[in-house]
């Protein structure tokens, strides 16, 4: 005898929708009505309505389809009640016959038949007319589906700051007529994608490098960035760079637990316990890195993912294919000058040809303002000097780097290295 499956619990379904699909619902409403506030309010109305009716009538077959048509009608009701809103939306040529079919009919639609408008949201949130810091807050809020409080927590910013940012950005979108859509012009689409990918990578870096605060790796934020990268990759399955970015983030995240020790002091690559690397993430990352590299249109994220994959495949530092790493950095430099990439290339060169060559390559970069302010540049020079047995110079360079480093993990790392030099 087969036991019939128990009906899904409305509360559980709604919680899952809120976590995973609310941003999709909001994106669809924004696409339809062109107004962020209205979309959010209407989505909220639909959730409330679901909370009231699902326990009574049962969970519809496609919760998202039900919510979408309920929210569309809720939005139209709001427009009808509010003259100011109606006037604003009149420009969007809203018509009454656009009223969605009854939710019961719409529920017959599978979620797969619903358009996914999140790409439009991603591209709209990363419009060049929006300030870069605001792009990140908008993206976390409207694509990541985080509440303002969650965005504040993730970015370690006071809630009023985040609210002010979101309000300013929303006002700008409405006031300046910034379209929340995928640009029609293919050239503009090409230009917009890197802005989207850069914003996602900044979310990840924010979590990974902890530019403020003392927690060296903020897992929630890196996980959120990976989720955004997955969404983007899923929306643009044939493009190299979204795949490359996802690969890069996975490979970087895989090494996260080995990157700092129990005291929160960063551990250099050569001393990391590779047994702590997350094998599953590494495997997926490497597979995706390879796939990205084989696609047309490979750019900086794909190349960086390839570099991360070379590191992931090596069982130890000496087993790393440094010639390959140097070649990949050269490719990266071919895309545009970047002092930090030059520095990384110099470090890789030192691994390939020995510390004397590495030091020469690093010394050749002295005087570049961006690197003179960059703590890792001085740390690399100091450590290379120490490797060459030039301990006095190493000590002086590392001490200067420590003075340059703000309070936090980098400074603790340099402190530990200086103590080690003194002990030898």
């Amino acid at each position, binding site marked *: 005898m087969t036991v019939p499956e128990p009906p899904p619990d409305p509360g559980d379904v709604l919680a899952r929708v809120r976590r995973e699909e609310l941003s999709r619902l909001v994106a669809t409403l924004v696409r339809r009505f062109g107004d962020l506030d209205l979309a959010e309010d209407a989505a909220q109305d639909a959730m409330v309505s679901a909370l009231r009716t699902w326990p009574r009538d049962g969970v519809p077959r496609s919760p998202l389809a039900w919510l979408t048509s309920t929210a569309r009608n809720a939005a139209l009701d709001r427009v009808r009640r509010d003259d100011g809103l109606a006037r604003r939306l009149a*420009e969007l040529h809203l018509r009454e016959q656009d009223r969605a079919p009854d939710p019961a009919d719409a529920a017959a639609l599978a979620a797969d038949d619903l358009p996914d408008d999140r790409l439009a949201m991603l591209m709209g949130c990363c*419009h060049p*007319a929006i300030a870069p810091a605001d792009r990140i807050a908008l993206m976390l809020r409207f694509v990541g589906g985080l509440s303002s409080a969650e965005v504040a927590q993730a970015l370690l910013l006071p809630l009023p700051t985040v609210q002010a940012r979101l309000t300013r950005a929303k006002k700008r979108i409405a*006031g*300046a*007529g*910034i*379209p929340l859509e995928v*640009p029609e*012009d293919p050239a*503009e689409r090409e230009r917009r994608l890197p802005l989207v990918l850069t914003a996602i990578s900044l979310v990840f870096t924010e979590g990974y490098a902890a530019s403020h605060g003392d927690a060296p790796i903020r897992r929630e934020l890196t996980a959120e960035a990976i989720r955004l990268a997955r969404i983007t990759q899923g929306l643009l399955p044939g493009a190299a760079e979204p795949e490359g970015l996802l690969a890069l983030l996975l490979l970087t995240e895989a090494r996260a637990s080995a990157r700092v020790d129990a005291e929160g002091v960063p551990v250099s690559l050569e001393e990391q316990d590779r047994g702590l690397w997350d094998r599953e993430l590494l495997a997926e990352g490497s597979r995706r890195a390879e796939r990205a590299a084989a696609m047309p249109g490979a750019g900086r994220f794909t190349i960086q993912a390839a570099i991360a994959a070379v590191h992931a495949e090596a069982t130890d530092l000496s087993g790393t294919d440094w010639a390959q790493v140097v070649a990949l950095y050269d490719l990266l430099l071919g895309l545009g000058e970047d002092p930090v990439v030059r520095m990384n290339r110099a470090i890789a060169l030192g691994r390939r040809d020995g510390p004397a060559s590495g030091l020469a390559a690093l010394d050749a970069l002295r005087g570049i303002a961006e690197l003179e302010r960059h703590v890792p540049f001085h740390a690399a020079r100091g450590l290379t000097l120490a490797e060459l047995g030039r301990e006095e110079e190493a000590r002086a360079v590392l001490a200067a780097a420590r003075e340059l480093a703000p309070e936090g993990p980098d400074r603790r790392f340099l402190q530990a290295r200086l103590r080690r030099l003194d002990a030898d």
Partner: protein
Amino acid sequence: MKYVLLLMGNLSDDRCGETEDAPGVEEFIAFDAALEEAGVLRGGFALTDPEEGTSVTRASRDAEAVVTAGPYAESREFVGGTIVIEVDTLDAALGWAARCPGAIGGRVEVRPLLDI
């Protein structure tokens, strides 16, 4: 939406027509014709050199008006002309700004008109 394209010049830059790359009058006329043909042109005007300008300021509501020759001395940037267009989105306005001859070696500031 209505947007104004503010064609900004800079006092420290070369004057119009003095460099080879600088856009000529014909280009502005052609741009105007393109806007007209697309049906988006809603107005605008060209201005004489900023030195021709005269500034009037009152420090407060009760203060006397002070008249000075020329533009505000500290400001290097000046408005050389304006074009008002009506298009659906900022992207469309930015597209026109990118085609505007005033953007070459200068700056075109795109501002939505306040709807009153």
